[in-house]
Each structure stands twice: as C-alpha cells, then as structure tokens.
C-alpha cells in the first residue's frame, strides 16, 4: 500500500501544485469602500430613482476646478464577492432573437451564424512534436532515443499521442506508445487518460491504463506526470519536468529530469519496488527557427534500489552518463 502511495506521489504532487496555483484564492481582503461607492449603490436618499449614477464618483468632493484625471469608476474588484450586475430593462429582451432573420430569411442567417460561431473561437489545430530525437554516446556504445508526441483538437478537448523509445544500432528497441484523451481543467493544466502499449520490453509487453496530468508549473516548468496500471496488475508512475533557460533569444539551455517508480517488484520487467529510475539531462539547443532546434547535451541516469539489482543481475550497469546530439522540432 505504501508503495502504491509512492507511485501516486508524483501525480498527487503535481495535482496539488496545479490546484493550489490555479484555484487558491485568498479570503477576500476587506477593502475600505471609502474611496468609491460600488456602481450598484443606488445612492439611496438621492432623488434620481433608477440611476446608479457612477458618473461622478467624486461628487460631493470639493474639486474646485482642479485638473482631474479620468474618473475611477468602481468595478467588481472594488466590491469583492462577485456582485450581480443591475438587471436589464425588460424592453431590451423584447423583439426577435436575431434581427437580421426578418430581412434576409432565417435559413440563410442560420448557416451564416453557425459559420460566425466557428470563426470566432472554435479554433482547431494539430501538432506534431519531436521533443527529443537523439543519438547518445556512452563509453563507445551508441544508442538512440525518440520522444515524440502530437495532439489534435480545440482548446479544451484534445487527442494526444506520445511515444518514447530507445535502442541501439544493432536492432535492439524498447519503448511505448500512448493514446490519450486530454481535457483542460485549469488555465495551465490538462488531465489525460488513455492507454499505453509497450514494445520490446520483455515480459508480455503489457498494456496499461494511463492517468496523467500535464501542464505548465510556476516558473515555466513543463511537467508531465502519469500513473500506469498494467494488464498484469502492476502500478507504476513517471514524472518528467523540463525548463527552458534562454541564454540568448536563440540559444537555450534545457534542464530535464525524469523519475520513475513502481508499486511492486516486477521481475519480468526488471523493476524493483519503490523509486526505480532517475534521469537528469542538460541540453543546449540553438533555435534556427522556433520550430527547429538542434542540440547537444549530457544525460545522467541511474537505476535505483531493487531495479539496480535486477540490472546488475542481468549484466548491465545501473548508472550511465551519455553525451547526446539531437533535434527538437515541431510543426
């Protein structure tokens, strides 16, 4: 159970941060209404019936011809607690819903309105993202990595796919591909759910259910955190974060970290329970164009705990340092 919790930690941490950043609000600070009466204040006692009359908030002050700036008409920010706006006069609601229908015909106007609606907010896009496409050099051994993704959809609902794989130049390959439904839940965060299929990883190349959170954390950290429940019943998790430090407008240093965890020992995948793997990379890229940037970098990785033991038992090294050359691109 504790291990399961460890697995959930990255997701929960990010979720916590996301909600804290986006939804936290301080209790409404008591503001002195002394300077500006709220717009809705009907100035009870004045003889001007419906007029809220924010026209001159300085009324009553002695202004004696002094040069004034524009009046500070109070708004909701001066009257916290989501004030209601004054009601519409009933006549504003009279007449037809669409004035032009009577002139041009409802048929043609309906089609035009539909187009207008789509042309003012319903923007769809499709992106293909090569986050890392690189060759690594580690003590004379060469390997390659791809980290690709893409999405299609509108602002709130999107289809995402992601694929990561690594291999050598002798035909060894192991990786995964994910297909996810993504929904924006706050200004900077999307929740994502779907499936992941592994390949080349040994065992039966399990399929997983995916639940993740992706977005932009404060200080511009791009974060992708997910938990995976495999068809074998194994629960694992992954947390990735990267940051772009612009040195100049085109030269960018990108630190990147990735941490993986497993809720249980999974011998067929060589995973021990607890934290299984950590990677830390530093990549220096040059944006020839915003969407095309070759890079060089270094990446250190280490298997942890029981996972390291599995790796050693299989004759591997739990720790690696790779120099990488690659490309970041999107279109």
């Amino acid at each position, binding site marked *: 159970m504790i291990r399961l919790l460890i697995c959930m930690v990255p997701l929960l941490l990010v979720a916590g941060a996301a909600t804290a950043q986006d939804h936290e609000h301080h209790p409404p600070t008591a503001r002195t209404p002394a300077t500006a009466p709220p717009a809705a204040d009907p100035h009870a006692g004045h003889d001007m019936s419906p007029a809220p009359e924010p026209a001159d908030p300085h009324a009553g002050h002695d202004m004696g011809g002094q040069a004034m700036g524009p009046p500070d008409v109070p708004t909701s920010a001066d009257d916290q607690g989501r004030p209601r706006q004054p009601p519409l006069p009933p006549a504003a609601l009279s007449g037809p819903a669409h004035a032009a229908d009577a002139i041009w015909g409802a048929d043609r106007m309906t089609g035009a309105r539909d187009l207008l609606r789509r042309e003012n907010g319903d923007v769809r896009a499709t992106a293909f993202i090569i986050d890392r496409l690189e060759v690594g050099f580690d003590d004379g051994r060469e390997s390659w990595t791809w980290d690709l993704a893409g999405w299609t959809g509108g602002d709130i609902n999107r289809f995402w796919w992601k694929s990561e794989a690594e291999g050598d130049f002798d035909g060894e390959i192991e990786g995964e591909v994910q297909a996810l439904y993504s929904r924006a839940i706050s200004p900077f965060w999307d929740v994502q759910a779907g499936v992941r299929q592994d390949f080349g990883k040994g065992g039966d190349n399990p399929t997983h259910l995916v639940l993740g959170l992706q977005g932009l954390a404060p200080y*511009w950290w791009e974060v992708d955190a997910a938990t995976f429940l495999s068809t074998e019943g194994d629960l694992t998790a992954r947390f990735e974060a990267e940051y772009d430090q612009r040195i100049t407008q085109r030269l960018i240093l990108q630190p990147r970290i990735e941490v993986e965890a497993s809720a249980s020992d999974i011998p067929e995948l060589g995973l021990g329970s607890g934290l299984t793997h950590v990677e830390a990379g530093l990549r220096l890229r040059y944006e020839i164009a915003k969407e095309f940037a070759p890079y060089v970098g270094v990446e250190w990785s280490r298997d942890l705990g029981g996972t390291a033991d599995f790796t050693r038992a299989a004759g591997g090294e739990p720790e690696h340092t790779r120099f990488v050359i690659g490309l970041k691109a999107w279109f």
Partner: protein
Amino acid sequence: MRSIQTDRRALLRGLAGGAGLFAAPGLPAWARSGSAGLRADLPTLDGPDVRLTVGHSPFTVGGRTGHAITVNGTLPAPLIRLREGQTARLSVTNTLDEDTSIHWHGVLLPFHMDGVPGVSFPGIRPGETFHYEFPVIQSGTFWYHSHSNLQEAMGHYGPLLIDPAGADPVAYDREHVIVLSDWSFLHPHEILDRLKKSPGYFNRSRTTLSGLLSGEDGMSLEERRMWGQMRMDPRDIADVNGTTYTYLVNGHGPAENWTGLFRPGERVRLRVINASAMSIFNVRIPGLAMTVVNADGENVRPVETDEFQISVAETYDVIVRPTEDRAYTLVAESVDRSGMARATLAPRMGMTAEVPPLREVPTLTMRDMGMGGMAGMDHSAMGHGVDHAGAGHGEPAAAPMDHGSMDHDMRNPDNAPAGMAVGVGVDMVSPDPANRLGERPMGLEDAPHRVLVYTDLVALAPNKDQRPPSRALEIHLTGNMERFMWGFDGRKFSEIVEPIRFERDERVRVTLVNDTMMAHPIHLHGHFFELVTGGPAGHQPLKHTVNVAPGSKVTFDLTADAPGDWAFHCHMLMHMHAGMFNVVTVRPLDGAAS
C-alpha cells in the same frame, strides 16, 4: 462613376503636371509613391454608384511576391469618397471561392447594411454581387474591410472618406491618406496555428539570461522571479510582430518609401488609418508638430502633439504645417519595436530624411498586471485625499494603506462579476485595474516629447445625448495567453454566449476591464460611444474603437440608439478569431428594418 480604369489618364495627367508619379501596378493612384495629395481629379471611387470586386491578387513588397485578397485588384483597396447627405450605393462582387463581406468601419447605417456575416446579413457568396445602400449621415475618416474569415489580414481593407455636407471646421490646403497595415507572407491561418501551438512564437525580444546579466532587460532577478512564478511573459507586447510582418504605408514597405508631397507653408491634413490585423503603432514625424483634429472620424478640439499611438482600427486626422523646403520622415513604429512603417513627406519626389532607429523594447509592469490601483491610490492621495484631509477626516492615510497591500491574488473570481466564467480561458483577473486613459501609452512613458493621451481628446461638438446613464455595465476582456484563448467575461463566442443586450435609446455606462496583459482595441459596430475622460462636461470624445491598455479599465457612455444586432469585438484579428467577439442587440426594433 470614376473607377480604377481611369487610373492611367490621371496618372498621365500627373506626369504631365511634373509631379513625378511613376507607375506602381497593384496600387490605387492615391497610394502610389509620389502622391501629390488627394485631388478631385485623382481616381477615387465616389458616388452615386461604387462598384467593388473582391478577388485574389499577387502582392509584392520588399522584392517578394505573395498572395493577397484585394478589392478591385489593389492593396490597399480603392479610396471611397462619399458626401454627407447622399445615399451610398456600393455593389460588391465576390470572385473568391469562399464567402466575403465588407464592413464599413465607423459608418452609421442600418444594421443589415453593416456587413458582418451571421450578424447583419448572410455574407456574399462566391459569384454573387451584393448591393449595399444606406443614407450617409456623418462625415470624417473611416475605412472598410472584410469581416469574413481572416481576409482582412490578407489585404482586404481600404480607406473611406466622407466629406461634410457643409463647411469643414478643419482647415487645410492638401490632404493625404495614410493607411497603416501589416503584411505577412504567412497565411493568417498559419499565423494563428503557430500561436495556438506556441504563443510566444513570433517574439524574439524575450527576457534572457544574457539580458539579465548585462542589465539590458531592465529587470531585476526578483521581478523576473515574480513573472516566472505567474507563468507570464513581461515581453509579450505583440502576439504577431516584425519577425513576420512588413509594416506598410499605403501598401508600401519601408524601403519603398511612400512619399506624400507638399509645398512649404501648406497645412497638410494626414488622415491616418490603422488597418492592421494585429499591430499597434506609435506615429511621429520628427521635426514636425502634429495637431490632432479628428479621432475615429469625429472632430475633436485641436490638440498639438509630437507622437500618438494608434491602435488597430482607430483613425486620427492630424494637421502638419511643414514650412521648410526639406523632407520629413513619417515613422509608425510597432508598439513592440520589432519594426516600423515609414513614409516621407517632401516638397519633391526622391527626397528623403533621416529614418530614426527603432527604440528600446518596452517591458510590462505591475500596472499591466492589473495592479494599477496602487499607483492610482497615490494619485488619489494627491488629489482628493487632500480634500479629505481638508474636510477634517483625521486619518487620510488609512485607506490608501489598505489598498497598497501587495497581497494581490492574480486570479480571484471575487474580483469578477457574477456572470463571468473564471475557467480555463481566464489566466488572470485584474485585482486592481486602473483607469489609464490619462496615461501615456505603452512604450512612450519616457518619450522626450509630447505624447497624445486619450484624455487630451475633447469632442468639438457638444455630445448629443447628455442624459446621465441609467444603468452601469461591466464587461471583462479575458484570455489565457498560454493557450491563446480570448473572450469576453471568460467565454469565447463559439461557446454560444448570451448577447450583450441594450434597450433602444438606453443610456448605459459601460466599463471594460482588461483581465489580460495585452492591449485590446475594442470596437462596437453601429454606434459611437463617449469615452469618459473626465474632460469638459458634455464634450466627451466619441470613438468607435478604444484601446484598453493591459490590466486597465476604460469607461464609456453609450446611447444605444441603433436598433438591430451589432458586432462587438477586439480588433486584433487573431484575438477575435480566437473568441473575443460578441453580438450586441438593441431592442425593440420598431421600424428599424427597411
């Protein structure tokens, strides 16, 4: 009807007259290099019948040719000249393979002639000719453009002048139209697509480590930490800029140097129109003072200045009086200083004057984050705070101190009206928006000369309706910069929003609150609103478009006297296309439709 076919005749006459005009295909004569000014014999299109054809054309600037959507084959479109009191009859033929439309920007007319597909009419289908007809009841400098898709960003815009029925209160000897615009060889849908995937795509002036170390960014580490904490970019001044745009004067790039002629001593009226898709300009003519006489087509009390900011879709008429026999450079610098439009005023063709270099990139401040009230408090402490003290309120400092607390929540729904959706599309709610109408516009705070501010504008004629407003209405301009979502009150138009409803002839005080760190030129169709500037009573300046500075609020008084349905939107075309659009309804209609 005089039409584009008469260009050649007029051109030859111009040559015979020694004005030194040379042919520039694809440009209406008034926009050609070496314009002697708008003379009656130059081929503008005027009444009673004007024929316009919308189609595809090549457009060349800077030695490169791209694809434009044009009216009568020119970019900008032909100058249309009408006279107050006439009936305008304008037929528009669509030769595109998609719908088109023409909106007469700033022109008061029956709603079904306003030219917004889906609001005022169904649009003009391919192959169809649509006949616009309306009485001309005003005068001034206006413009016209497509309201379909993003055709306007591809060249479908032109100037529209209406001469007054009586004597013009503005005296001048010669006039030039200055149509400012932005041209990209990227299709506007491509531009929007990139912004959706990477909202900072066009920005090459972001803060950097080297800028921090050298001090060039002008920001402390602590300030930068604060911006980073909020995931906001203090250099996000213009979404689309000089990295893709060539800024144009009358269809000419800076190197092509559009030139307007004058004789020393003449009063030259420049009718400046910002027909850009996404660009706000700061306009100056080094060495010449400019007297602003008209804003958005409405006369204002003459006010002299050295530089003014013109937001998208605004117009300003200025009078200049060059007395020396020399050339002057007209500079329209993009607000983010990523490029400029340039033209020359000269006594003869071929003369040029020094072109000043681009100035320093501005950086956003706390006021742009809607924390303007703090400085505002200082202001009021200096202003009527004194009155409080004088009135014997013993503790004048207490209230400002409370307000001055730094404890601002940048996204507190309690700072929004009850009807606003504070969801994914809202990354900020201004905690303390300031009225910045009296402040110099962005980037001109420290300009070493006079700069026009909105509060300088005073309507020449008394306001027609001086009733106090019977209702107050607050509308928030909202967005999510990271997702490039824009809307009003937290909603995109595509989400099927409730229209903004007015009763006919209702007088309403509308306050726009900008909950974003970008400027938004907000345009209301079919009406002029009066900016509440605190200026001389009964002379509030009339505008059809107002630039709402980042994190600020703008208040205007509106008499909803035009029955029907009208568009209300941000005139940054990408913002509009991303959702910052709504419909204004004015009811009852009684007798509105002809």
